């Protein structure tokens, strides 16, 4: 038998939590998920999989680990679901620990494998089922659970209070007014055209991104607003944790804020999983076929602004750039062409990656793996070796990542693999190259 080798990683969210469980509780919970929650798809996928192993070459973990078979998508399912099904849920704490490790840190739910499987089996769905079981038993990576707890308590994943949010918005507005005349970040403007939705990390750490979007909105003359109350944050680690109830709660709060403000559509910042939560998983959990309001990602928004001439480009970026295709936005929404339109409009020397579009590799940060944080950083960096090779091969100096997980993940792997590149969001590029009309500029 092929031996599975993994370095020991201490994560109290998994290690300590399994100690509280007894086999009866585990069995009961697992069978609840198998019987009541998972249904046709689980049965069809597990029964139809012919164990051909063709999904292996799709997975960045498998490729980054020199084709170690235990990282293949089907191998992940074998080590988790097959065990569980064979034993009819009668697994012990140690097995559950292994399942949690594989489901939460060895898969990004990127769905590249479904494109390689001849039967179109959704391996990410199967892994999500395992995560659901682990969540219901309380076995979740510590840092990931911390963010989910924050979501439950404060409706954002950074433990920010309402004051924190409003203060930050007003501070960024003030800063921006030193550059752009009468720049505003309109809070609670009822009847505005667009509600802008952002990521709590931007409020906590990356506040310049708030100023960026305000600048873009002001120059483009967009009628926009952001709620001052709960519901401004679009992050959703609960979705990754398997806590679908909290996932639904956060998504509902967000749409309710939009309904209250009577906006026509929601435009969101550059994030991948938030889009997935709002438009797919969260909305579906709440019973909507898709998001109840048009939900536009920043990529599409910027594309439309440039295409319609609302933002004009004054100069282009000279350094060679490349682009990461965020899994949730390109494989997950087909925004690859719009992304490239923006880049070609704003950058002179664009060097695309190979493979690209839907076939691009996951950067190994999404799906909650980034948020499993410090204990699992090495696992994430090792799994992204193939991405590092891709980036290096482009010879670019800047990697454009229109997703927060990709941004942090690619930044980390550039560091680790010493690629000497910089990561930028689209908004960072835009504010650098866009034309600011004379009348909006503050006289020096």
């Amino acid at each position: 038998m092929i031996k599975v080798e993994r370095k020991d990683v201490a994560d109290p969210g998994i290690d300590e939590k399994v100690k509280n469980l007894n086999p009866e509780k585990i069995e009961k919970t697992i069978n609840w998920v198998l019987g009541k929650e998972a249904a046709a798809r689980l049965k069809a996928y597990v029964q139809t999989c012919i164990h051909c192993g063709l999904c292996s070459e799709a997975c960045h973990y498998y490729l980054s680990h020199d084709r170690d078979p235990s990282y293949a998508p089907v191998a992940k399912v074998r080590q988790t679901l097959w065990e569980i099904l064979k034993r009819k849920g009668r697994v012990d704490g140690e097995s559950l620990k292994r399942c949690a490790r594989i489901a939460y840190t060895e898969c990004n739910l990127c769905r590249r494998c479904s494109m390689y499987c001849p039967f179109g089996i959704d391996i990410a769905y199967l892994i999500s089922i395992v995560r659901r079981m682990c969540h219901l038993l309380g076995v979740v990576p510590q840092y990931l659970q911390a963010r989910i707890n924050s979501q439950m308590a404060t409706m954002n994943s950074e433990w920010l209070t309402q004051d924190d949010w409003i203060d930050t918005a007003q501070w960024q507005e003030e800063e921006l007014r030193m550059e752009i005349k009468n720049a505003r970040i309109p809070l609670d403007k009822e009847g505005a055209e667009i509600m802008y939705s952002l990521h709590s990390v931007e409020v906590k750490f990356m506040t310049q991104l708030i100023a960026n979007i305000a600048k873009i909105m002001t120059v483009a003359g967009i009628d926009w607003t952001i709620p001052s109350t709960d519901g401004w944050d679009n992050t959703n680690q609960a979705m990754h944790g398997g806590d679908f109830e909290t996932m639904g709660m956060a998504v509902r709060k967000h749409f309710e804020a939009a309904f209250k403000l009577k906006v026509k559509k929601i435009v969101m910042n550059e994030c991948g999983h938030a889009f997935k939560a709002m438009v797919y998983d969260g909305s579906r959990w709440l019973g909507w076929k898709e998001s109840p309001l048009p939900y536009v990602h920043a990529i599409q928004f910027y594309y439309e602004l440039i295409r319609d001439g609302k933002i004009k480009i004054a100069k282009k970026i000279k350094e060679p750039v490349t682009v990461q295709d965020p899994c949730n936005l390109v494989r997950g929404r087909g925004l690859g062409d719009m992304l490239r339109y923006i880049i070609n409009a704003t950058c002179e020397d664009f060097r695309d990656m190979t493979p690209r579009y839907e076939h691009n590799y996951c950067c190994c940060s999404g799906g909650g793996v980034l948020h499993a944080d410090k204990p699992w950083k090495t696992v994430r960096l090792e799994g992204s070796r193939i991405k590092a090779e891709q980036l290096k091969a482009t010879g670019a100096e800047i990697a454009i990542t229109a997703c927060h997980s990709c941004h942090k993940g690619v930044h980390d792997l550039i560091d680790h693999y010493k690629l000497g590149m910089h990561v930028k969001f689209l908004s960072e590029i835009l504010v650098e190259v866009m034309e600011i009309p004379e009348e909006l500029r503050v006289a020096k």
Partner: protein
Amino acid sequence: MYEFLTSTEVYNFIKGPLVWVSFIIFIGGSLYKIISLLFLARKDKVVYPYMSLKYSVRSIFHWVIPFASTNMRKRPWITTMTFSYHICLVLTPVFLLSHNMLLRDSWNIRWWTLPEGVADVMTLIVILCTLFFLMRRLIAPEVRFVTSVSDYVLLAMVAAPFSTGFLAFHQLFFDYNLIVTFHILFGEIMLVAIPFTRLSHMLFFWLTRAYTGSEFGAVRHAKDW
């Protein structure tokens, strides 16, 4: 033992009632499995609302035509072997002269027949591909990791009727009466196994492919090949 297995009674039984039984189980079982899955899918609330005929067909199209998908192009040997195997697997028993003669005798139905030489080659292809798949399971690490006894049994279960059929027709090595008895029995075993083992990928592959095609195509505006 030999007398029993090659007796007229046993021969008539496996060629008569047992054929009925195995076809009823095969067809009935397959229908039951498909229909019960279709019903179960109603409970999985995301399946039907997102199914799209256009994108299902688009996806199936890209995966039943050799080399129409990226992964198929990346794995030319496996693709060639897999398609040859399945095409020969399905066409040979349906259009074989020996089987057509039985069909004519029993039901007075006639249809097109494969030339004998071609049928021979097709049978040998099935056997050759079986050996290829067997080697793959034993040697390729990513396949070995997820292979267990059942995978070998399935390979053997499909290879058995083809190899015994070939041996019977050419009257090689074994006594004809004995080997043809085994051939019929193995064929029947394979048929009844289809709805209840992983051989049912024959029934379900269309559905999983259609759903993924719909999700990727209609919802995510992306290609799933």
